[in-house]
């Protein structure tokens, strides 16, 4: 309550619009990728062979957008605004009191996202030049990828929920298009559709949250909603609104119960998995919670549910990751699990912690995917050369690849140490901050201690499955055939270059929010403070200090080291058979391998009954049977009968006609007038 005058004043400043020159150019970050879409799209439809232009335009527009993002960041750093700068492009939906503009919002949070999205995208675009070079759909690929970035930036920069929603659905569309990029394979097209539908289930929540906000607050732009909410929004309304928003987030960010699309999404090209399904799009839900942090702070129940979903997802997905053989599937479940951490973070109220992990995860997970891409690329070419039909993504067909891919191996180990939470790699600091935040919240509500415990267990499993992945891929005896071995080699510099940069970021990314115990001053926390303070003031969070902090740190490190050791030892401690001679899984391992049969359950409970109902009941019984058969058919029979009756009356006797006409006319007049 005491807070609102302050925030309202800040909003007032924002409407004054003190945006600097760079901030006013924020639209360029969207327009540049869109330009790429137009050029690459037209090329793909007219001359699909124009590779040189595509290779130049595709990554080029992204580097341009990155440059603008850097300029915006520097401008904000030079003069940090207290309130978001809103740049209105044009009026969009103006009806009655509803005023939705196509407007962009530049503040500390969106500038961080802007840097991450354009930066990582640039690297992945460059990597794609090599990775997708031989693909006949090269131009189409870059058109889609550029389109994705444009929508992602609309999502990040949107100044109101409907504009954010353009980006939100748009990235889903691009995800759909890119998952099904090789669409002549039905499995890929299926996976794309599944992703789109799962996301749309979430979008119901997003839409309803907007309706509720409009109903209760009469506004949909962040500045108004977030500043007025603390005084006017009831706890019940805030809870419902945030619960529906959370439903949207579980779709986009692949959390329980809507996570099922993400593993299938690995059907897309690997750079797409790195960019969309690891580093950027799937983190949109985390961003949304952080963006609307005030609403979540007003609804502690939703916070609890968010944290619970996050913790459970982190553990659940990690267990599945233990038993997958497809290297990309392991990473997919790992992504779901890591997104769970971010939800745990923002659910607890640690918005900075969530965003911090979002950033470091973007670095190390993109690196892991791109590294896996290099491995797949190498194996694929080897199999291609020897006309083998083995699966280039199945880790049972790998082993000992360190010999041929030493650089990729080293770089992926950096990412592995980062995700496993080994200091001083980036993931250590961000994951630790989330777990510490959960622990701290436990002092208020003991259930958060449980979430902390689940998170810690998931951290252990993370280290285990990552060590298993590395061991199966790069170490031990090789299971690659003699013939293929000669064809294995590191990818070209255009692919290794981005990997090296991402490895540097994975190694040093922790500095952006280095805590005091490591000699830092939590730079990200301070940077985001103008955005997060309204929420943290409503729901304060004091991270543990002193002995507690040291014990938590020690535990985290011990868990990571132990997990890596166990994962590595158990994987190499037993013989691994190549995929084609491996026996089927048994027992609980099979349940894990089959992902707890969740897909099958959803299919049997939701999909099949719905299709059956639509086809067999609604169409054939209601439409054709009841409406057409009984009503219309009955009408036809009735009118035939009437017609026959009528034709008997056509007796040719004029007198009868006149009589009937008179009777009828009188009757009609009586009916009308009486």
């Amino acid at each position, binding site marked *: 309550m005491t807070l609102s005058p302050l925030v309202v004043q800040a909003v007032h400043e924002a409407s004054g619009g003190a945006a600097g020159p760079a901030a006013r150019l924020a639209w360029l970050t969207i327009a540049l990728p869109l330009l790429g879409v137009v050029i690459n799209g037209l090329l*793909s*439809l007219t001359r699909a062979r124009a590779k040189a232009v595509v290779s130049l335009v595709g990554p080029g527009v992204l580097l341009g957008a990155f440059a603008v993002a850097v300029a915006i960041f520097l401008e904000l750093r030079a003069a940090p605004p207290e309130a978001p700068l809103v740049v209105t492009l*044009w*009026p*969009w*939906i*103006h*009806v*009655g*009191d*509803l005023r939705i503009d196509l407007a962009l919002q530049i503040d500390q949070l969106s500038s961080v996202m802007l840097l991450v999205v354009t930066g990582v995208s640039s690297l992945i675009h460059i990597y794609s030049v090599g990775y997708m070079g031989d693909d006949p759909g090269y131009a189409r690929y870059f058109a889609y990828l550029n389109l994705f970035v444009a929508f992602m930036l609309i999502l990040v920069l949107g100044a109101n929920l*409907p504009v954010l929603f*353009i980006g939100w*659905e*748009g990235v889903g*569309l691009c995800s*759909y298009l890119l998952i*099904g990029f090789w*669409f*002549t394979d*039905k499995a890929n*097209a*299926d996976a*794309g*559709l599944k992703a*789109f*539908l799962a996301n*749309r*289930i979430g979008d*119901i929540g997003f*839409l*309803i949250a*907007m*309706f*509720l906000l*409009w*109903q*209760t*607050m*009469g*506004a949909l732009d962040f500045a108004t909603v977030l500043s007025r909410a603390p005084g*006017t929004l009831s706890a019940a309304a805030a809870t419902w609104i945030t619960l529906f928003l959370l439903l949207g987030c579980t779709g986009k960010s692949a959390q329980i119960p809507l996570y099922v699309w993400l593993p299938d999404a690995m059907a897309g090209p690997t750079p797409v998995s790195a960019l969309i399904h690891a580093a950027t799009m799937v983190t949109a839900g985390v961003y949304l919670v952080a963006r609307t942090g005030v609403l979540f702070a007003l609804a502690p129940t939703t916070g609890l549910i968010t944290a619970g979903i996050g913790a459970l997802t982190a553990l659940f997905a990690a267990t599945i990751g233990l038993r997958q053989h497809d290297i990309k599937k392991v990473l997919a479940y790992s992504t779901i699990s890591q997104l769970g951490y971010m939800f745990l973070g923002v659910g607890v109220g640690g918005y900075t912690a969530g965003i911090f992990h979002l950033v470091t995860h973007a670095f190390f997970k993109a690196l892991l995917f791109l590294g896996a891409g290099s491995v797949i690329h190498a194996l694929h070419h080897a199999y291609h050369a020897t006309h083998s039909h083995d699966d280039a993504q199945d880790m049972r067909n790998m082993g000992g690849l360190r010999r041929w891919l030493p650089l990729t191996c080293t770089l992926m180990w950096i990412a592995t140490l980062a995700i496993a939470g080994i200091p001083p790699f980036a993931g250590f600091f961000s994951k630790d901050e989330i777990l510490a935040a959960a622990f701290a919240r436990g002092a208020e509500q003991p259930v958060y201690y449980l979430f902390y415990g689940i998170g810690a267990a998931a951290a252990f499993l993370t280290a285990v499955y990552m060590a298993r992945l590395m061991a199966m891929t790069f170490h031990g005896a090789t299971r690659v055939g003699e013939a293929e071995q000669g064809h294995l080699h590191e990818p070209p510099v255009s692919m290794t270059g981005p990997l090296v940069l991402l490895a540097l970021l994975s190694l040093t990314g922790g500095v952006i929010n280095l805590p005091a115990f490591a000699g830092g001053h939590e730079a990200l926390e301070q940077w985001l403070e103008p955005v997060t303070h309204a929420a943290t003031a409503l729901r304060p969070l004091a991270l543990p200090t002193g002995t507690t902090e040291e014990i938590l740190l020690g535990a985290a490190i011990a868990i990571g080291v132990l997990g890596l050791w166990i994962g590595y030892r158990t994987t190499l401690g037993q013989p691994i058979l190549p995929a084609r001679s491996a026996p089927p899984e048994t027992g609980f391992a099979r349940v894990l391998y089959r992902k707890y049969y969740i897909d099958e359950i959803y299919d049997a409970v939701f999909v099949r009954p*719905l*299709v059956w*109902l*639509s*086809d067999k009941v*609604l*169409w054939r019984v*209601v*439409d054709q049977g*009841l*409406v*057409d058969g009984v*009503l*219309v058919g009955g*009408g036809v029979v009735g*009118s035939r009968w009437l017609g026959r009756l009528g034709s008997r009356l056509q007796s040719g006797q004029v007198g009868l006609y006149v009589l009937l006409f008179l009777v009828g006319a009188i009757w009609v007049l009586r009916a*009308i*007038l009486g």
Partner: protein
Amino acid sequence: MTAFLTSIGYEHWILQVLLAVPLVGMALVIISPKDWARVTALVVALFEFVVSLGIWWVFDPAKPGLQFVTRVDWLPQFGVSYYVGLDGLSIFMVLLSTCLMPLLVWGSWDQIDFKQRGFYALLLALKTGMIGVFVAMDLFLFYCFWELLLIPMFFIIGIWGSGNRRYASEKFFIYTFSGSLLMLVAIVAMVWTIGQQTGTYSFAYDHILAHVDLLRPQAPWLFIAFALAFAVKVPVFPFHTWLPDAHGEAPTAGSVDLAVILLKMGTYGFLRFAIPFFPTFALSPGVTTVVVALAVTGIIYGALVSMVQPDLKRVVAYSSVSHLGFVILGIWAATVQSVQGAIMVMIAHGLSTGALFFLVGMLYERRHTRLISDFGGIARVAPLLATAFSITALAAIGLPGLNGFIGEFLVLLGSFGRFPVATLIATTVVVFAAAYLLWAVQRVFYNPLSNPENEKMRDLSKRELAVLIPMVAAMIWMGLYPYPLLRRTEAAARHYVEMVHPYLSHDRSPAGPVAEVPR
């Protein structure tokens, strides 16, 4: 532009010209040599289109009432006059129908290969009827145009249709004709009743509207007569089963005209006549409950049944049942947002469903089948066709940034306060809509190219691109910048909302919920 148009008296003659040109064109087509029929029709259509554009500028968005009014006595002894005008409710239906004309001729160019003169003559006659329905402000005149439409459409489906065309055209005719006969009885009864009590027998819209209170005793029956006529046209569930047959069997131009204009005559009828004439009954809690329930049923039902259609054209046809349900919901919710949303859905559905029918027609011309299972992997051989279809499908399922989203969003947002449960249910359609259209897209354009007959399918020709590019451009434009459309329809929507507001079952601000929130 506006000054020039005003100086030549544009607003006084434009509607007459729009009504007359297609009829003159019809005569020209009939007397022209056989091979010149389509060229003549195209010239006429282009002329009509160009002339109509001035409406965009001359129309004054600030005025809530009728503009471009012309009123001349026709049969004064019966109270019938030639009375036409345009306002925010009708402007875009008229513009949509004139803009569509050249595209319809272009789209039929090669598809109609026999009795061309008859076809284009009927197509032009249809256009006069369509424009007439939306500009007529005299109920007798309105009824004439309303029926004028039926006959050309009956023949277009019956002669140039495919497969089961006789059945489809008869079903269409009987369904809609029985609806409109009831309306005729109601119109005559209204004029009679009002005439009896006021001494003035007049079919003029404003005369009847001014005396609706005199109709109160008969309101339920009169409303039901009107509502049946309109509900069949919309079509409201369960009066929709003529639609998949008519849509399915009609030639492309017929399906497009049906989707873009004919269905909107029903929703327009509710907005213009049925509700303003009988607000006490139409908006009473009981009727509202029934209508909203039917609208929401239609929204979900249409989507689910669409999902399982084996025939691509019927997928699109059933999707109309779903989309038009939004219009009905929005009309009955009667907030500025929901009514503006209803109008936007009417426009957007015209664009995207019209384009979808064109696209299905193009597929049919190539393969002479509409069964989804006959296709697969088409995107590999016809990427332009696939791209155009995909963008249009995305527009139809309401992807924000394209045209479909604006209306659906506004309807749902505006209806939520009045009908929270119905709106919640209706919102779930975003999943089903994606399911029916994108699943169809997948089975037609993606998946393996397994049928050898599809391998040689040619991509879009220049003529086909000329039909589709303007439509796709309009979808993107409307999705990103609907402001000019909203501005031109707002006054009429607000007028409607204020008119019916006293009759709503519970009181709330017509402009939106803001008034309730302390500032």
